[in-house]
């Protein structure tokens, strides 16, 4: 059975590229346009992994991670940040919130797939 991964990003083209890469490799993908949209969907739907942007309207990536970790349905899933930001302070912030990993945009499809495989075991 294929695994389901959520991609949360306010950029439709980035979501498109993430979804394309994941689907190409046999994963099911759910898209969310921002942190709030992602959290709403994650409260009702079980996923295997979350890939989220950091800077998003309504609810940013850090807020989303905190929301997921404090919820019940998906609180233990791996969460990887996919962002243009590369500052260590932001990374530490993400790690403290409960992020599993950090990918600086732009990603290469093979990189993303390698990370997904690694974190999904």
């Amino acid at each position: 059975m294929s695994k389901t991964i959520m991609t949360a990003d306010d950029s439709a083209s980035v979501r498109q590229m993430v979804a394309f890469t994941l689907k190409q490799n046999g994963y099911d993908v759910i898209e969310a346009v921002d942190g709030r949209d992602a959290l709403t969907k994650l409260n009702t739907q079980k996923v295997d992994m979350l890939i989220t942007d950091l800077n998003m309207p309504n609810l940013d990536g850090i807020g989303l991670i905190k929301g997921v970790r404090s919820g019940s349905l998906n609180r233990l899933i791996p969460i990887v940040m996919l962002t243009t930001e590369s500052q260590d302070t932001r990374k530490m912030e993400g790690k403290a919130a409960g992020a599993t990993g950090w990918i600086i945009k732009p990603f290469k499809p093979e990189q993303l797939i390698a990370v997904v495989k690694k974190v999904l075991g």
Partner: protein
Amino acid sequence: MQHLAQWRERILPLIETLKKAGGTTEDEFLQIGARLQEFYIKSEQCSRLANQLVGLLGDDEYHVLIGALQRMIDEMDEYLLAARTRSNESRETLGRVLELLHAASQPLEGFQNMQKTLRMLGISTKIESARLGELGSGFTILAADVERLSCQVNEKTGCIVVQLKELDNLIVQNLQGLKTNELLQDAEISAMLAIAMTSFQGLTDLNNRCSHSGEVAGRVAGEVAASISEVVSSVQTHDSVRQQLEHATEALGRLVEEIGTAAGTGDSDETIRGLVSKSGDICELQVAQVRYAGRDLYNAVVTIIKNLNAIGAKQSLFLNEITTATGAGGTSGDSHFSNLRKGLGGAGAALGNCAGSDQKLFVTLLKVAETTAGISSFVGAIEEIGAEINLLALNAQIKAAHTGKDGAALGILAEAIKRLALEAVTQADAMSHSLSSINSATETLVTKARGELTSLGERVRGMDGKVDEIVSSLECLNQSTSALLVNLIDNVQNLNGDINQSTSSIKVHDTIEELTSQVTAGLDEIVTQARARVPASTEFFEDLQHMTSRYTMQSERRIHDEIARTKKGQTEIGIVPTLVLAESHCESEFGDNVDLF
């Protein structure tokens, strides 16, 4: 203060242009992304077809058929060799039979002489018995019997002569025909097998070339994947450029706000001077940011176009490789198959002719055996006649003895007749012996041929059946590959057409270049005016350092850093170390932009 107000009015439309540049490109990138997925699917379809094609011509089934063909050609060679060995053996036997026939015909002359002598002796006996009158009356019957028997010898000898001549002709004709036929058959079989071998070699080469194409398929798939990877990566540039433009918009927005606030409060000259300097600093920095952002996006789109075209080009390259490997449009494969059928079919037919010749030879051998048996019966008859004459001569001798002195001449005649009779038996024995040798030689060959001919006929028919089966399987394979090739050509052409149409319609980079050029030109004017009023000071460098914290993206900080270097003329102070400290390079197994906690 008036110029600040003018700058404000100049910056406001530039902000709108920046918003337009950052906000209206998303759809175009989404379209590129959607087409990428389409091209990916089509490219995968091309790769699948190409792999299927290469697989068909390089897989086990093809190897099995090629192997079966090789065995078939070997079997035909073996058959021909066996046929020739058998034929040589038959020729030798027939040659020996011919010699034996000549040997057998030697006693015939003796028979003919004996018949003449017997007739003369019969006449002499008649004369002598007439001279004796009453006493010789018994010898008249002897003379009549001897004459009758000599006629029989003559008749039998004549039959033997005719049959021996027929046999001789039959064998000589067969031997000549056999040699001529064999030469023709050998030439035909060699020519046909040469055609088959050429086609076989062609198919083997085709198989090898397709195996090589299989390696190319793997390389092309890797290169297409790399191109797709480049496109995926480049499409994301839009996101970072959008953010860069948003940040520039925000910075300019704050400057406009500050100028607006200052205009309302009527600040001092020094404050205005500071604001002019700051306007120059901010505008100069945003010129750099916008210019770099525009260039990044332009380059990314060029990379996208280049790599999308590369996907089509790689598939075209692979198509060329395959069409070269299989022959132009698969036609060389067609000619191989048709020539193979022609060659093997022709060789099979020629081998069938060989079997026909064998059959004819067998019939000849049967005829030889049959005729020899007929001759033997005549020889046997002569032998019996000899025995009968011998008995008559013995009776005549006894009678002559009883006749006394007057019968002495008749006794001598009877003695002569008896000698001839014994000679006839001896000659007949000799002839029987030769005929027996002929029988023995032909019988061995006939027995052997009778057993082999049935199996050889079946073997030739079996070979014909196998050739048909193998070539039909290969033709079926060829039809599949031709259909796949046509399909592949269609798909690759379709993919290339779509890609060309799609890439030629991508104008987003030109639009962005135009918009960012408008913005940088406008901002450059303000920078020039601002620097004319207040030259850039060391404070700019400090401001840059202060502004660094606002930039979240590595690319933005790099631009910032470059301006700082230009202004300061050195790298050891301030910003560069700050930047280095701000970022860590995560050299993970996944690359330097991935960090797993």
